[in-house]
């Protein structure tokens, strides 16, 4: 069943066309990888879906409802949560309070007490329970990324957009993060993962969407997409793509 449908999404900043006529849909419960070279428009696409910028053209349907033109807080309350590439904690608040904010405002927890209880659960899930009472600013980068995850889980998302949650992590930390993402998926949350590390994308996602210069150039099963000449060209240049195409792998 389709949970999120994007139709002809476009965005231009002045003369720069950052996202051009992108359409795709997400089925409930799947993990989809969103990849593309630097500057392809991946983060812009996420910002458009969650209403950070108004889109220039296009339509977004979430759970059968037209949500075009929604603002970020509305997206959050409807169950469209996202994490930031550059982590955005409420720095002077405690780790617990950060997660309580998600549970209380977007997760619609009935009371502060209930929000705290839920927040503690999510912190335990993310492996941050021991740091609950520390200020968020004191966390290390991997812990901050886990805090972002706990915060977005507290929002009770139906679709979770993960914008480079693994950037800046070492191999051991990435394995841990992968495990966490799989466990979130097992709860029935639909996940879009923006990622540069192909190892991560390939091991997690059932489908992959590729953006290049703001356009969707390829979409499909993981192995099909990575062998698509247009994708190889986008990443490695036309010369390499031609040689690669001449000698089928």
């Amino acid at each position, binding site marked *: 069943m389709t949970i999120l449908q994007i139709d002809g999404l476009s965005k231009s900043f002045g003369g720069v066309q950052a996202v051009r006529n992108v359409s795709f849909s997400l089925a409930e419960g799947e993990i989809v990888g969103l990849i593309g070279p630097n500057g392809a428009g991946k983060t812009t696409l996420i910002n458009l879906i969650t209403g950070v910028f108004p889109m220039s053209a296009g339509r977004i349907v979430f759970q059968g409802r037209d949500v075009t033109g929604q603002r970020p807080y509305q997206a*959050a309350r409807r169950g469209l*949560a996202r994490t*930031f590439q550059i982590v*955005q904690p*409420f720095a002077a608040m405690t780790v617990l309070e950060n997660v309580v*904010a998600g549970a209380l405002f*977007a997760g619609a927890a009935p009371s502060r007490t209930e929000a705290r209880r839920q927040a503690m659960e999510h912190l335990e899930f993310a492996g941050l329970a021991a740091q609950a009472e520390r200020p968020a600013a004191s966390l290390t980068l991997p812990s901050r990324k886990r805090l972002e995850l706990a915060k977005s889980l507290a929002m009770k998302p139906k679709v979770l957009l993960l914008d480079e949650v693994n950037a800046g992590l070492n191999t051991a930390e990435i394995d841990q993060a992968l495990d966490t993402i799989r466990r979130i998926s097992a709860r029935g949350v639909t996940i879009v993962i923006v990622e540069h590390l192909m190892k991560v994308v390939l091991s997690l996602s059932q489908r992959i969407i590729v953006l290049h210069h703001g356009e969707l150039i390829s979409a499909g099963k993981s192995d099909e997409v990575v062998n698509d000449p247009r994708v190889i060209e986008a990443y490695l240049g036309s010369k390499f793509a031609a040689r690669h195409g001449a000698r089928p792998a």
Partner: protein
Amino acid sequence: MKRLPYVAFVLWFLLLAAVPFIASNYFVKIATFLAMYAALALSWNFIGGYTGYPSFATAAFFGLGAYTGALLQNAGMWVGLAWACAAIVVTVFAALIGFAILRMRGHYFAIGSIALVEALMLVASIAADLTGGGEGLNVKIMPGGPNYIGRVFLYTMLGIMLAAFITTVLVDRGRLGFGLRCIQQNEDAADMVGIDTRRYKTAAFALSAVFCGAIGAAYASWVAYISPTDSFSILLTLKVPVMVLLGGPGTVLGPIVGSAAFVMMEETIWARYLDYHQAVLGLVIVLLIFFLPGGLLRIFTRRRVAA
């Protein structure tokens, strides 16, 4: 430890309320100013402290309240009702204006809010038929003699201070206060966790206006004469944020501590150095920024963390 702010407030309130019975009219007047500035500081704390928006609109709300109250009173309205109407008018004004200027952040918002003071002052100066223009406006003097009037206004200001404090406590403990703190920390992230930031900011701005409007109206009745420069005073609009920063922004007790320290400093030191007192204000601001960015209360909390 958690109850300390409330105990301190009640003691301060009782002390100010007892002044007419233990001291002369001079001290009654100082107590009235203490209550008035405490209420103005508590008001600013909603937008400047909890939400982190550097508002300089205090004098705009105060002046608008003063003129609204004075005009209604001169038109024959009962004093108390005139004050209440002034508070309502100012709150509606703040909500409408806030919706527009709260789109700006940081310095832009600060300048926008200070422009509000200037614009209203010009309106009060130009609309001479209604407001008396630069000549000012006389307000009916209350009957009852100076002793009686002094007490009436002390208890009026104390009442407004109490209302502002109770509102602060409710906001501080509630959902609104938590949401405002999130906005103060990181507005984009606040939006992303489901906080309707525009509505929350407008609510904070309106809360910062309601008591200022009532105080302005009460002040107009108290001094019985208002003028544009006196009502829409830039000095007032600067003093109130400094008081809150002095005490501790975004805390329940900070505005009380800050306003008390500031008014007492004004009375004891500056009154003796009339030529330099604005220089002293400048010095206080600079010292605050460098040495006490968290306010006087932070000295105690710091010590508590260390211990």
